[in-house]
């Protein structure tokens, strides 16, 4: 009897040890770095320096702008593809695999691939040149065309990371009971009514996890921005990297990391709060 009660705890013990060593230990170290000087005195100076930095507001702005542009776009694209795949047309499995392929591409690689398209000697410029639209290369990636740089980052992320949302949504769709859909058909629901009143509500848990994962990743987005935006478009994760590796102040770097964590937790909380499924609400 006693072992039965203890067994679950034994079983999760390895996970807990793993989390303690590889998640909580570094995390507490990061908190320490952000609030303590090298001599171990408490200070808010690192946060003050971060907030007063000339690039901070811009980094914050672009992090949010990119997130609120990319995440909804990905969600819509992924939902459309998932619904398409769910019609089980011939070859839909193959189509799913092809759509999921970019999952295997590292974000830096994705950024570099897009860079090779948009750079002054890139594919886009050579196509435009050969078609006679331009006489000399157009500088898409430059200080003069912030819009293009922003767009190329959105494009890279959209191409690379939509697949993860897609996979989650396809799994979610497949879990929806056929009986419910057939019942809707019997009651004479039109396709969009079926989508709106049956599929989407039942898909909510999947949408929720997809949103949480994607938003957190979008907030942490860094390699793609680094490859395409250089320093033109700063983001919070990039600033954390720059402060550690280039400006060599790990305290301020930790402050950025903590800020990102707080924002991520906040966003997750918001999703959990506002996308609650019916059973949770009843409970």
């Amino acid at each position: 009897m006693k072992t039965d009660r203890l067994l679950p705890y034994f079983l999760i013990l390895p996970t807990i040890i793993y989390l303690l060593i590889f998640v909580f230990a570094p995390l507490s170290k990061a908190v320490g770095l952000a609030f303590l000087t090298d001599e171990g005195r408490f200070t808010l100076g690192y946060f003050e320096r971060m907030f007063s930095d000339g690039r901070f507001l811009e980094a914050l702005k672009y992090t949010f702008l990119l997130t609120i542009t990319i995440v909804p776009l990905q969600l819509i694209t992924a939902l459309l593809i998932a619904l398409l795949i769910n019609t089980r047309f011939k070859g839909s499995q193959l189509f799913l695999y092809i759509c999921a392929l970019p999952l295997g591409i590292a974000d830096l690689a994705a950024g570099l691939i897009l860079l090779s398209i948009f750079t002054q000697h890139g594919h886009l410029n050579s196509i435009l040149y050969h078609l006679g639209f331009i006489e000399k290369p157009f500088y898409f990636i430059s200080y003069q065309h912030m819009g293009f740089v922003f767009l190329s980052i959105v494009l890279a992320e959209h191409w690379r990371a939509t697949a993860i949302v897609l996979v989650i949504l396809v799994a979610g769709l497949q879990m929806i009971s056929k009986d419910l859909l057939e019942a809707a058909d019997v009651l004479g629901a039109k396709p969009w009514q079926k989508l709106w009143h049956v599929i989407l509500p039942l898909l909510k848990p999947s949408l929720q996890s997809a949103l949480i994962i994607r938003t957190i990743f979008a907030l942490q987005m860094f390699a793609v921005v680094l490859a395409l935006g250089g320093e033109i478009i700063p983001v919070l994760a990039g600033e954390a990297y720059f402060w550690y590796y280039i400006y060599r102040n790990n305290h301020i770097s930790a402050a950025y990391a903590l800020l990102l964590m707080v924002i991520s937790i906040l966003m997750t909380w918001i999703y959990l709060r506002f996308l609650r499924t019916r059973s949770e609400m009843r409970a």
Partner: protein
Amino acid sequence: MNGQKVVIALLVCTVVASGSEKITFMSTQLVPIAEAEWVRSELLPRFTKETGIDVVFVGAGYGEFADRLVAEYKAGKGTIALAGGLHGDYTPLVRTLTDLSKEFADLQALGDRTFIPAFVELGRLNKIQAYIPWTQGTYLMVVNKMALDYLPEGVDIRALTYDDLLAWAKNIYEATGDKKLGIPAGPRSLLHRFVHGYLYPSFTGYQVIKFDSPEAIKMWRFVKELWQYVNPAVATWDAMDTPLLSGEVWIAWDHGARLKQAIIERPDDFIAIPAPAGPRGRGIITVLAGLAIPKASPNPEAATRLIEFLTRPQTQVIILKGVGFFPVVKEAIGTAPEGPLKVLADGVMAQASSKDLITAFIPSGLGTRSGEFSKIYRDTFVEIVVKRRPIREVLSRQGRLLKRLFQETGAPYPPPDESR
């Protein structure tokens, strides 16, 4: 007595015969694959042949370099016998390094090499000889010969001023419609060096003291004008060799090592010239790399022998020929290498012998915060020139950060500021 001798002889024999002594040399310099390969296949085998000591060369970024030195120091047990890094790499790590005063005196006693005294002095950190000078680098300009057709009349290319540079770039733009001037501004570029070590000393005479002075305001107005002729793609370029080779840029400023490849690939197409002079003189930076022995070094004796080898005048010339890093011992300077590097060496020598020189050093003593110094100048450039924010406002804000940085660290202002 006799027995003792036999034992000693035996010991000597074992050491010589084993010959498999192996040390690790970790460096933040010569990290790019081509350079590291050269170190492994060309440079270090000479040392191994001479001493029987095998050297494992490990290239590392600053983060890894610092992390390993600190970790091995804390553990009291290390694998890195010798470290190679920039002056600025060592300043936050002095506590992990051995005092090399005695080793340095031994090297001097050999009598075959005279280190540039200012470099030795820079290697003294926290009252110890933290490193021994190894190589020096500098930043200069490389010009495509096609640009020479547009050089304003009466301008001496070896004594260029910033006004000449502006007129030159403008001529090219008006004639070809292209912005052919290149100053690297990518995230890993050395843009900040251009601002604090070239622009500021040339226009204000100082790196720090006159950061937000009226001269500085005039300077930034000039830079904004110059920026109109800078290639708009610079934000993605970390080094200027590629755009020089592709022809997107005709006149480029960068670190010698980051311009080298252009000259090596097409030595007949390019020339190297001194950086321009401003109203106060020709501000230039000298970058110093040094060799240090960590306190946790497993084999300081072998490391000392490697230092002796690497600072030997002959080796210094080999390094110049191999990778274009310039010597720090006087006996090696003047031995101009043959081939494409002569083009670069000519530029470096012409720059070093300019009469109106103001030599700036990358500041030391800022410790872990030396990166913030770079950031202030970089941000200032981006805010004023790229984002077009009001000069006065940006200068006073960034100037406050700069003052606070030196106040909080107690670091001396870097030359030329402190010497005046």
